[in-house]
């Protein structure tokens, strides 16, 4: 039986929520515009202001120079930011994944060097995972690093690297020894300076002209031994161990929340027919459920558990919710949308045409379903 135990936010957590809410109200008052969560363009200045409040790298332990706060506290901050349509992309990868990686697998030097800078909003990371021929089959990466004096020579190409155009480092999954039979063996993670010689970044523009994604080429890039993350050959294990963190967060289902909230404000004073009421009631119910599941995963992480299946279910359900919410908003809007329109209409138009990319982040749902099946099967066998 999967468990999504409910525990309400504590008084301290609620106080934190109010602080973030106030902060975002102030940001809005200062002219920050509403965007579609992790799909909005990066805003480094904003990310630094968030960092200045102590809200980047929140779960980094105190002994590593972090605030040492809980996964739930981080959940509270992230959900408030997304609800307000904050542009969190710049610090997002470092906050969500890289910091955890350094804490768990990084050398003392990495921890000393990078963790305080993440917390300060002084360094941005991106992830070099997918390749032209790999897609969901991550283990088939061809980018390879060969041994050289004092380090590695990196060659290959990554695609769909979000934020490479402004980041400082790309955490690159690559092959450090040949795949003999089992392709999950012999992979490693390298911390590659995007300004190093031999690195080139070129944009992959989305259908609406947006530039989140990039190709990153490595042409004999020298990576010193000190920049291997974790152990040589442990890349696969390191990457997959982070998936519960990556998949269950509110970023998985909150892209359209700001649009929903705006639409809702308009409806409050409108003459709303019965079917719209019913449909909004359903959205409320689904959202309450998802949020409860996501929050309970954060609680489980704080208890030291790794609820991977639960996280995969939340990701899957969350992306469904986003697609349905967009469809519903489109129906509520009641007609043709102009992608160039200001305010709600333009935002909704962006959501409609970029929605297909929402399901693709963090592993396609098809692959996740196999993960869930295997885990359910294993649990069942163990309990039998």
């Amino acid at each position, binding site marked *: 039986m999967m468990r999504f135990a409910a525990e309400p936010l504590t008084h301290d957590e609620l106080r934190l929520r109010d602080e973030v809410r106030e902060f975002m109200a102030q940001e809005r008052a200062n002219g920050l515009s509403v965007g579609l969560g992790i799909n909005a363009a990066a805003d480094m200045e904003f990310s630094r202001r968030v960092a200045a409040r102590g809200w980047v790298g929140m779960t980094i332990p105190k002994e590593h120079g972090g605030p040492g706060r809980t996964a739930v506290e981080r959940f509270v901050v992230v959900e408030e930011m997304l609800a307000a349509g904050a542009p969190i992309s710049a610090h997002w990868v470092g906050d969500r994944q890289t910091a955890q990686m350094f804490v768990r697998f990084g050398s003392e030097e990495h921890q000393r060097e990078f963790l305080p800078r993440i917390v300060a909003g002084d360094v941005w990371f991106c992830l070099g995972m997918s390749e032209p021929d790999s897609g969901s089959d991550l283990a088939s990466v061809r980018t390879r690093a060969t041994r050289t004096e004092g380090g590695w020579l990196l060659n290959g190409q990554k695609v769909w690297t979000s934020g490479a155009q402004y980041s400082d480092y790309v955490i690159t999954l690559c092959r450090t020894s040949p795949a003999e039979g089992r392709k999950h063996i012999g992979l490693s993670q390298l911390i590659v300076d995007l300004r190093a010689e031999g690195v080139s970044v070129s944009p992959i523009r989305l259908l609406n002209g947006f530039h989140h994604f990039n190709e990153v080429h490595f042409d004999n890039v020298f990576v010193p031994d000190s920049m291997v993350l974790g152990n040589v050959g442990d890349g696969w294990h390191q990457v997959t161990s982070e998936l519960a963190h990556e998949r269950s967060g509110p970023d998985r289902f909150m892209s359209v929340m700001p649009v*929903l909230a705006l639409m809702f404000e308009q409806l409050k004073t409108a003459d709303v027919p019965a079917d719209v009421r019913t449909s909004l*009631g*359903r959205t409320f*119910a689904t959202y309450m459920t998802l949020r409860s*599941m996501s929050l309970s995963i954060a609680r489980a992480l704080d208890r030291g558990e790794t609820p991977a299946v639960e996280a995969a279910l939340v990701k*899957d359900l969350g992306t469904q919710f986003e697609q349905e919410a967009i469809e519903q908003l489109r129906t509520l809007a009641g007609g043709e949308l102009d992608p160039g329109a200001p305010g709600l209409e333009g935002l909704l138009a962006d959501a409609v045409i970029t929605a297909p990319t929402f399901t693709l982040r963090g592993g396609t749902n098809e692959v996740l379903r196999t993960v*869930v099946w295997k885990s*359910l099967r294993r649990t069942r066998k163990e309990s039998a």
Partner: protein
Amino acid sequence: MSELAQELFSALDDIVGARAARDGHGAVATWDPELWAALNEQGYASIDPAEPEVGLAEFCAVATAVGAQALGLPLVEAGLAAWMAASAGIKLPGGLAVPAVSTGEVLTVVDRDDDGLVVDGALRRVPWGRHAEVVLAFARHGDGTTSLVALEPQRMTEGSNFAGEPRDTVHVERQRVDAGQVSTDSALGPREARARGALLRAAAAAGAMDSVVDLVVEYAGQRHQFGQPIGSFQAIQQHVVTVAQAAAATRAAVEATFMAAPEHRVMTAAAAKVTLGIQAGRHARSAHQVFGAIGATEEHRLHLLTRRLWSWQDEYGTQHEWAHYLGDRLIFPEAPGLWEVLTPPHPAVAAREVGESVPW
């Protein structure tokens, strides 16, 4: 879940599970007087809602165990009736009392004096009505207000739900109800009682869904086609995940109500029932797809669970009804923002603000 809730669930699950192992799942799925007596003795039919450690979670735990075992006995109904009576200040006589609030229909008060009321009307879909000694129903006065009344059923037409659980029509013909069996508290109305019934149905359904998940995962791992376990096919995996996801979502929706502030409980219970309505169909359909025709045969356990899901999703208000209610509570000119409603204040704080008189 509290420790008490966990204990209630486990003990009930064990007792009924043992009986099912002895007599078969089909046997515990229909009224079994012997088992009813045993559970009564264990106190499952008379949990006291006034006990300080007994709350929503504990009643839901019992409902979940009932659903998980597809137990055909009115434990959930007895619990709902006990809570309604306690909230309304009615002292119930002994014997099985069941609530008659599923459809939302109410009786009419045709006469009143100091000694009580005379009520009239028909109460449809009364769960386990034929086994009940007392039926709890609402009766509407001429001024539109309602009172809760406890009455002995006189005449009945038998009916059932998809799972064969009794859903009877109680015909009330100018029946007298003594003042002691009439509530004076107006905080508990049909809405609150039905919302709690809806939540308990969602909790029971979450239990049934968990059992379906077990069945489906086991079958998909054992059954072979085209030389492999069918669970290795993506199409089947997708069904299995749908089954598991629907179960998890329903349970999460139920548990979300436990952390709601008192003034949000009807809304969150409504949301739990809507979630059940969204999930029950996909869950049951995918489960039956995994099993193929075998799951729809008389002797299979699957349909003992799925037939309950099909009925339970509509009892105590359909998805549509509760979704419309939520829509009304969300959209009106003075409504708070959507996000404020979705992220409510702390239950304890909110309880202080609304005082102690809220029914739950």
